[in-house]
């Protein structure tokens, strides 16, 4: 039967292989391809100042981290309040090389892809370690266990001479086949690197979710008693979930270390952990693209509040920084509002908009 490859009106699969496809129509695939191309090309078309590029880069690093957090909290249902600590593990893995070898050693400047990967692996190892209490603890108690890891991490870094007691450890400029990345190229270079990492990791997650390694996460979230009866070790599955999240966080940490060209404890505090959690919630827990919406939305909110407060400051002629007052307020308000009115996050709006466009002009 001839079917329209671009617009599907129903299910015309003739094999189970076809049903596994990520993109059901050629339109879906092209749309994503176009979006990725657009993301890759726009910096070449417009001139951007580096401050704006840094914001974009920061969002993208957060996307990597939230992808991981979404796996453990969204899909496996284990609340992790220590995610920034895992990001920190990745960053400090890179930083430890800088401390040992010097910030401009060839390992740091040339083998940076390996170091970022290593950051991920160390993150995964710590994730598994922190996940061990999940064998016994559940729900709130497990969340507190992850919180304690956050505290231990901060404390250890603050008191270790090797890590400069939490003060910034500088990381050198990296080299790539085209030479050393200069000051002007820095943010653009990392934009492309992080974008590549995101595309690779997002496809990895998408693939994972259609196999037993993804399904077991959802199984322990929904009903770990039944998961047990279905032949999954619930405890080990949870440890594995934490290891996965640790890997993503570690990679994000490695990227962040290179992006900021320095590692300091102030980027990996409890505040950041909560921020990641907020991004995951606002984006939409348990959805893949929620990991993209969340960081973008929270960051956009930050910028919005900043410009709003400077505007208010001008009108009311108030001395002092209004943004510091408005930021926590708006942040808390947004989380509460999302939890109350849209617990499925921005991802749900996307789903609604998508199905509306798909079915137009029909209602359903």
């Amino acid at each position, binding site marked *: 039967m001839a079917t329209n490859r671009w617009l599907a009106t129903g299910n015309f699969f003739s*094999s*189970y*292989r076809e*049903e*596994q496809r990520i993109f059901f129509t050629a339109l879906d695939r092209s749309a994503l391809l176009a979006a990725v191309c657009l993301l890759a090309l726009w910096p070449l078309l417009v001139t951007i100042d580096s401050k704006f590029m840094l914001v974009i880069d920061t969002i993208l690093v957060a996307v990597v981290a939230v992808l991981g957090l979404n796996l453990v909290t969204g899909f496996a249902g284990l609340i992790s309040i220590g995610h920034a600590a895992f990001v920190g593990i990745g960053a400090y893995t890179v930083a430890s090389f800088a401390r040992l070898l010097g910030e401009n050693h060839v390992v740091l400047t040339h083998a940076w892809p390996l170091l970022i990967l290593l950051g991920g692996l160390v993150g995964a190892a710590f994730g598994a370690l922190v996940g061990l209490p999940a064998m016994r603890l559940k729900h709130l108690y497990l969340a507190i266990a992850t919180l304690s890891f956050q505290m231990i991490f901060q404390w250890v870094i603050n008191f270790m001479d090797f890590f400069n007691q939490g003060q910034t450890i500088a990381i050198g400029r990296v080299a790539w086949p085209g030479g050393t990345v200069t000051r002007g190229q820095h943010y653009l270079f990392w934009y492309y690197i992080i974008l590549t990492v995101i595309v690779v990791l997002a496809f*990895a997650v998408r*693939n*994972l979710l*259609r*196999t*037993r*390694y*993804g*399904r*077991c996460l*959802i*199984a322990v979230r*929904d*009903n770990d*008693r*039944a*998961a*047990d*009866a*279905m*032949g*999954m*070790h*619930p405890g080990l599955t949870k440890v594995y979930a934490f290891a996965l999240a640790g890997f993503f966080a570690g990679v994000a940490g490695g990227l962040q270390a290179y992006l900021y060209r320095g590692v300091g404890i102030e980027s990996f505090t409890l505040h950041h952990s909560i921020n990641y959690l907020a991004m995951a919630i606002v984006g939409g827990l348990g959805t893949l693209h929620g990991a993209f919406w969340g960081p973008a939305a929270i960051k956009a909110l930050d910028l919005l509040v900043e410009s709003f407060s400077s505007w208010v400051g001008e009108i009311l002629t108030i001395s002092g920084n209004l943004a510091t007052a408005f930021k926590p307020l708006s942040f808390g308000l947004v989380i509460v509002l999302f939890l109350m009115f849209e617990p499925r996050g921005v991802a749900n709006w996307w789903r609604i908009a998508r199905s509306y466009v798909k079915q137009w002009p029909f209602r359903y």
Partner: protein
Amino acid sequence: MTQLLVSEVTLTFGGLNALTQVDMTIAPGIITSVIGPNGAGKTSLLNCISGFYHPTSGTIAYGDHDLTQAPPHRVSTVGIARAFQNLELFRGLSVLDNLLLARHRHLDYSLWHAVVFLGKASQREAENRHYVEKVIDFMELEPYRKSIVGNLSYGVQKRVEMARALTLAPQLLLLDEPMAGMNIEEKEDIVRFILDLKKEWSVTIVLVEHDLGVVMDISDAVYVLDFGQVIGAGSPAEIAVNRKVIDAYIGEE
């Protein structure tokens, strides 16, 4: 011949004896029912077999495997599947996903294959899907394939529960009150499924059920529990005239 051997199993919770010296042999390929009044220990016995409880004393053996202290995920690996009395489905997932999940132990590709999703993982998942479709076909769940389980009616959810246990491809299936709370028509369906399972899939079935009519009609062997003790065992005909059983459970007209 014995497929499952439960010998002298005692299960105590503090001072309460849930099961006392329970002996049970289950022969392959037949339907064995466990009946008894509420609180007699039927579900506790199933919990012991499927690994959610571990007997205080006594042993449970399945072929060469000693299952006395085995956790549930190991019990399911040797070929015993269980359908729960109170629905324990993955409520937020579709029927299809619920069943795909149950094939966890049959999928042997590595994490790396899963991430790349080319070759082995993709092929195994297609086979997995094919097997699941066979179960869907058998349990007549076609209309609900893509429905979210939590939204389905109770009777259908019960059927999904049974289908999910079946998807594990067990040799021994433990059914805990599969007909509880169903109307006569749904009961007839389930009975038909159970009989077909025995005949076509040659699965051994252990059935816990309150509907005596059903039990007496379809069982090959019956065990009667009361206060955690076996008070009668034998064919349905023998049970029907067993004095102790009549006094404890069946009653007289």
